[in-house]
């Protein structure tokens, strides 16, 4: 069982990284909450206010924080909870429940499917595409990468380095060509070569640039038109350090190309990442993958329980 062994150690490595990565989150959110829960001997307005502040510090955002708090208050009242400590369990439970990923969330992995990876500049789209390619290749799937970032200097080279590392084919085009035409070619290639998954890397675009968002809409339509029977997955990549603007990003990208999930990156250094909770609560888009480092296997399926526990410092003492 050597395979199982490596799988296990890899998994352990990943979560220890998530933990080490989220140390700072824990220190800010977790310890803040810890403080809030221990320095109060009863539940009063100061207690709630302190909680609210700590959550805002975690980039969860005012609206999501309000909703979470409202629910918590109602539950505390209904269940006649008096102990601030019990509140913590309840709060964590609520957030876990909210962040739960649907059972069919990863159906697209069985293929044939097109995974469109989109987002603003510098969030880690190309790296995420490279990592996903490696993961699916390791699972024995036939993967093709489409390099539809025809704008940024050397984006093609960066992606082809990843493609080589992962050992998969890449369909590209010279800088400055129409990304939709790259997609057209890539879809034909994916069909001809019987690919399971076509991963599409796109150029970073700020969500308030109308033309670029329209371009994205066109890419999305070309896929649907050229390969109507394939499964579709549109993943937005969000930088874990991003604040409230990530909400606007998710909203706008969702408008241009219906989003099915989030890849939350750079979670090895960010203190917060609470914006994921805000987005799930406001737009109902689930986090599907989480990135905690630069190595190939530092991108994994999102585990709400581990994430929320790590965020709030639960289980730290066990490990």
């Amino acid at each position, binding site marked *: 069982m050597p395979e199982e062994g490596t799988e296990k150690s890899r998994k352990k490595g990943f979560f220890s990284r998530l933990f080490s990565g989220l140390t700072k989150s824990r220190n800010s959110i977790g310890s803040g909450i810890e403080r809030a829960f221990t320095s109060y001997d009863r539940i009063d307005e100061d207690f709630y206010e302190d909680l609210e502040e700590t959550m805002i510090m975690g980039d969860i955002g005012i609206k999501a924080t309000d909703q979470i708090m409202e629910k918590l208050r109602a539950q505390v009242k209904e269940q006649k909870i008096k102990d601030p400590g019990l509140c913590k369990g309840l709060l964590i439970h609520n957030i876990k429940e909210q962040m739960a990923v649907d059972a069919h969330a990863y159906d697209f992995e069985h293929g044939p499917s097109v995974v469109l990876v989109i987002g*603003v*500049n*510098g969030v*880690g789209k190309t790296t995420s595409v490279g990592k996903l390619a490696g993961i699916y290749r390791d699972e024995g799937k036939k993967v093709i990468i489409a390099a539809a970032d025809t704008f940024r200097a050397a984006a093609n080279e960066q992606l082809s380095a990843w493609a080589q590392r992962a050992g998969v084919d890449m369909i590209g085009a010279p800088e400055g060509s129409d990304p939709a035409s790259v997609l057209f070619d890539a879809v034909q290639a994916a069909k001809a070569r019987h690919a399971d998954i076509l991963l599409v890397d796109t150029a970073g675009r700020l969500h308030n640039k109308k033309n670029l968002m329209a371009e994205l809409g066109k890419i999305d339509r070309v896929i649907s038109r050229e390969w109507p029977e394939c499964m579709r997955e549109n993943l937005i990549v969000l930088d874990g350090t991003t604040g409230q603007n990530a909400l*606007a990003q998710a909203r706008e990208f969702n408008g241009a190309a219906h989003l099915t999930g989030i890849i939350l990156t750079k979670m090895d250094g960010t203190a917060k990442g609470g914006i994921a909770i805000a987005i799930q609560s406001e737009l109902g888009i689930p986090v599907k993958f989480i990135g905690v480092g*630069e190595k190939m296997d530092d991108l994994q399926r999102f585990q709400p329980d581990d994430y929320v526990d790590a965020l709030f410092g639960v289980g730290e003492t066990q490990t």
Partner: protein
Amino acid sequence: MAFENLSEKLNHIFRGLRGKGKLSEADVRSALREVKMALLEADVNFRVVKQFIGSVQERAVGSEVMNGLNPGQQVIKIVDEELTKLMGSEMTEISFQPGKAITVIMMCGLQGAGKTTTAAKIAAKVTKKGKKPLLAALDVYRPAAIRQLQVNGEKVGVSVFSMGDDHRPADIARAALEHAQKNHFDVVILDTAGRLQIDDEMMQELVDIKEAVDVHQTLLVVDAMTGQEAVNVAESFDQRVGIDGVILTKLDGDTRGGAALSIKAVTGKPILFVGMGEKLEDLEPFYPDRMAGRILGMGDVLTLIDKAQANLTAEDEEKSRDMASRVRKGKFDFNDYLESMKQMRRMGGLGSILGMMPGMGISREELEGQIDEKKIAHLEAMVLSMTPEERANPKLLNPQRKYRIARGSGNDIASVNRFIKQFEQMQKMMKQMGGLGGRKKHGSPFGGFGGFGGAGRKGGFPF
């Protein structure tokens, strides 16, 4: 959310308080609560917000409400001034070494902040200043990072020095400097790899580079969309490596950019430039005042406040005071009407003022459709066609005089009748409002812009 931005919220809070001359502690506290929320929504770090609110509170309580502003706007004015002060009141530039000495600039920051792009932008900028820059590729980790710098360097016509990806960055830096000396470059820009501030090994690498070569300016590149984390990033980089300035990128997005304030507050280091786009010339100087307005989410209201300040002269103030007392007595006549129109025009016309007032709850485009500046010009022409006696005493206007006014102003008699009727109604309304008393001692003709907003909705002015 019921209220889209801060000024709307503040207008709502102060709706009942329009007549006050001074800001009370309670007023300030409720206003600052909203300011606090606005700053948090803009991603300003919580600790920074708390400190900031404290200092504003101190200054705002008991301050006099300026002529032409309502209490909400007065609070905003103070907040804005303090914000601008905090962010540095003047623009700063990259400082170069004297004479022919080589200036070494090192870029650093998290992954994806935009270091490579910004390095090329700075190279382009210093070229315009008559310098000869050299870009050095020190990112030996990210695939194709060197290639990206080369392509960008080519685009801006700047040489790129690289040694591939199997040398230590500190060695590359040293070699780049030698290369620059030999080939008479006078600015060397080191493009380093993105790194996390908690990655000790990688942070040490930056320290090593600084030990290998004399770095004159270490610039931290930060994504303007960064959330609460901005403080940790800036603090760590500053403490561990030492930074001299900050560049804020991706500000062409719709982020409010609270990170700017957080970083300035914790490091005290100036923000030198802001990245405004993907083109290599899109690097702009940083204007603290504009950033303040953006963080508050109300640049337009600040512009309005500015205009009110700049355009209402002492003479205007005298007139307004006079007019206000006449309004109270119900003696508002066509001369006053003309005067208020003049004042309004000095502030950029009605459309621009209404557009700047968030309380109106209508968009600028809608406004442009609804308010016809031409129609107002017609009304003004009618007033100008009246004799001084008629303007002072509207009761003189008999049908004959009205006919003359219509002809003189190029309108038909029906429009003149409508205008005069509306004017009379307005007079009546003003008398009622005046009777309620409690108006501010020296109110503007609009009774504070907030007041004008309200009156406008009820159709106070005849347009």
